[in-house]
């Protein structure tokens, strides 16, 4: 390990806090009724959607080893459960974790 772990952690946290900090500075001048606020609202939701889609379609970690088809089935079933349970978030999340582990173990 070339770098000291504590310094790496501090560098990582500064790089992360920077975006949050600049966000607050910009937000001080933006009214919640303004057009620019609505634009940023759209940007925030679309960026999150892009991030989530990437996590599922092009995962970086261990999910990569799971077949596309299985991943999509699990996402689809979880969404169905979400609506069947009247938007309960606990059931679909637990279900997806267990079912994917089992799929991966047995298939």
């Amino acid at each position, binding site marked *: *390990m*070339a*770098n000291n*772990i*504590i*310094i790496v*952690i*501090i560098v*990582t*946290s500064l*790089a*992360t*806090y920077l*975006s*949050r*900090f600049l*966000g*607050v500075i*910009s*937000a*001080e001048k933006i*009214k*919640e009724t303004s057009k620019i*606020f*609505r*634009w*940023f*609202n*759209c*940007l*925030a*939701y*679309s*960026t*999150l*959607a*892009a*991030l*989530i*889609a*990437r*996590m599922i379609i*092009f995962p*970086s*970690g*261990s*999910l990569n*080893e799971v077949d596309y088809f299985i991943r999509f089935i699990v*996402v689809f079933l*979880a969404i169905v459960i*979400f609506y069947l349970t009247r*938007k309960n*978030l*606990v059931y*679909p*999340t637990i279900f*997806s*974790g267990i079912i994917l*582990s089992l799929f*991966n173990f047995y298939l």
Partner: protein
Amino acid sequence: MIDKKYFFKGFKSIKGVGSPAIALAASFVAIGALLKSLGFTVQESIFSTFLTYALPGSLVMAESMLIGASLINIFLAVWLVNARLYPMTVALMPLLIHENQPRWKYYLSCHFIAVSSWLIMKDNYEVIEKENRIDFWIGIGTATWSVAILATVVGYIASDFINEDILIGLAIINPIYFTCMMLSAMKTTQITLSVILGAIIGPMFYFLSPEWCILFGGFFAGTIAFFVGEKNGK
């Protein structure tokens, strides 16, 4: 200082049917196990989640350390992957800023901005009067942040028992939670379009640049959704 009534009201968001606790815990358990495999001590792992509290950033940090990247490269890579926090902060803070509240609360509590806490706040802010929203937000942030730190410790300690099958199960939980939260957030034309276009255009940009696809895809998708929504009366 902080109004306890609203703080605890926010803190309780980790309970109940909409709880983010499982999703958050699943991903930070995986982070704890990953940091241990990288040679972190348990204190360093806690310190990392305590100070960063943003999942993709911690993952990039881990990847960069594995390839022995320089500090400046780590800074840039983490900044890039967490730059989405900027539009998220700008889209949240104007809802919380109130003249009767001290500025330090905003600069300190922006540390709590992460996908799950942000989505919970966006879902609930309307039921809280504007003056009290920041204390409510600090409650949500403290709760979700504590879950993340605790889960990091659990993952670190349990890493010997976490095999590949469990890791894969843990990895899907967070995207599923986010997907369901996004689906329930789709209440206006602008947000619905932003989410759908973001989920399509973001991955498309992956073929051009894996590093920039989220920011580029998000920028195009969000801007299109904004103009379409403005034209059709939101």
